[in-house]
């Protein structure tokens, strides 16, 4: 078990170092700088009364930028290893293909979480500058968002096993940014379709990743919303783990049969 953990640590460390080498985190810092600049521009208007608006804008921008990092990082890792033929020396070591996938997934999650931490720190700085108060729900927002981003990484990695990097990234963006639209389409059309179609909608609802569940931004940005019950956070944790495990199984099923 310890041996496995060492393998995962080495693989994920390589992903993080690669990300630093590619200056991805510099881009994140630049995006964070844009957040601060945007906040300064709003400051010209006078901050009084704009706290809720700025908070909402902050969580929206934070969610969007960190999701972009998660999708781009997770969808390109494996194809690049194959393209640059660096996969062969990796697999010549005593690690299985499943270990490789898990290690890469952990690496992409770590990179995404670092990016999120940088962006969150800069957003928090901007929000504090506007006098926005930090509530318990904000902490829950961060925890849920971290789980949601990890789920995005799992989806991105799985897509990259089945598709080209460009197709995987595009599909990843559609699934993540279009998640709420897809869910709304399912719920609003359910009562207007026949029984067979309802079965199809139920299947889609179960199969598609529910990224909207991990976004507490609506509650965190507005005033007076109570923290989310513990069972809900527990459900999110279980959903993330089981859904990611399912995706890893799918990835492994494909990647294991792949001729390299």
């Amino acid at each position, binding site marked *: 078990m310890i041996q496995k953990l060492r393998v995962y640590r080495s693989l994920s460390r390589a992903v993080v170092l690669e990300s630093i080498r590619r200056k991805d985190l510099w881009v994140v810092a630049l995006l964070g700088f844009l957040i601060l600049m945007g906040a300064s521009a*709003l400051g010209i*208007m*006078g901050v*009084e*009364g*704009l706290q*809720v*608006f700025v908070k*909402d804008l902050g969580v929206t921008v934070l969610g969007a930028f960190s999701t972009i990092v998660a999708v781009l990082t997770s969808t390109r890792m494996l194809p690049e290893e194959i393209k640059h033929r660096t996969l062969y020396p990796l697999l010549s070591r005593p690690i299985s293909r499943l270990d490789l996938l898990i290690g890469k997934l952990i690496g992409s999650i770590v990179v995404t979480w670092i990016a999120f931490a940088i962006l969150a720190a800069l957003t928090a700085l901007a929000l504090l500058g506007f006098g926005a108060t930090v509530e318990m729900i904000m902490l829950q927002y961060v925890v*849920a968002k971290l789980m949601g981003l990890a789920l995005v990484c799992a989806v991105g990695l799985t897509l990259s096993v089945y598709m080209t990097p460009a197709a995987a990234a595009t599909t990843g963006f559609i699934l993540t940014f279009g998640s709420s639209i897809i*869910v*709304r389409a*399912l*719920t*609003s059309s*359910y*009562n*207007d379709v026949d029984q067979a179609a*309802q079965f199809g*909608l*139920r299947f889609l*609802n179960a199969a598609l990743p*529910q990224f*909207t*569940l*991990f*976004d*507490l931004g*609506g*509650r965190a*940005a*507005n*005033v*007076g*919303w109570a923290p*989310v*019950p513990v069972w*809900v956070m527990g*459900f*999110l944790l279980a959903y993330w783990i089981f859904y990611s495990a399912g995706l890893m199984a799918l990835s492994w099923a494909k990647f294991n049969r792949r001729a390299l």
Partner: protein
Amino acid sequence: MAGIGWNATEVSPVVNPRIRRVQTSEGDSSVLGQFQTSASGWLWSYTEVYLNNGIKLRRMTGAEKKAQNLPAERNFGQTIIPGKSDDFRGIIGDVERAVSAYTPTQNHRQNDPRQCLPLFRLMTWLDPYFVEGWTTGAMVVGMDYTPGATSRALEFLREGLQENPDCVDIPMMFGMIVVTRNKDLKQGERFFIRAIQNGKSRFEILPENEMSALRSSYRWLALVYRNGGNSGKLAATVKEGLQVFPDDLVLPMTGRFSVVPPKNYKWPKGEVRTRFTSSSG
């Protein structure tokens, strides 16, 4: 084709209403213009979310109104996230309702509209040609009905009028406030006349909201003449208004008092006709 396009002078004002083109030399098709319009439009729609403390609403569909025995011709709000009884998703639906800003429509509390003031200030700063931002913002500014709130609302409208001198809504709103709150019929008359002039000069291309403001301007101007005792101008205004809006049922009724004012009623400034006061008591 180029010749046809060259002669088709009416297409451009319809696509880009003159109210914006007159004010900005670069026009709405510029990237900055598009950004301004999009940003202010987004802020405009965001005020509703802001008022509802983050709860997002949508209009009910025809089928939903029918299922709840609600009149089809009226609009009703419905939370974007369906309620438990209408949601097939089971626990996933429960979790979404728990993590989102959600309460059943009937029970949610609305925030004070005055909290949206910074948004109106921001949207009119981003897009000074967004007339609804100025008029709705002025109503929110003046919600208190205190002299201070009224003067702030008028100041807000004055800024809007400087940016949009040829629009109908802002002078109409200006006149309405000075007549109803400051009881200043003379100033109100000037603004309603200006609104009507603006509306007539761009009548062919007036959007729905400005057409409605033009109709209101005729009505208000007729009321101003009625309360000012100027029956000649009242008749002329009603006549002209009915030529523009032949289907209007209110304009013909503006000539008579619909409510008998109490004895301690303070008449507005200006020349008040004595006929009514003498006949009523």
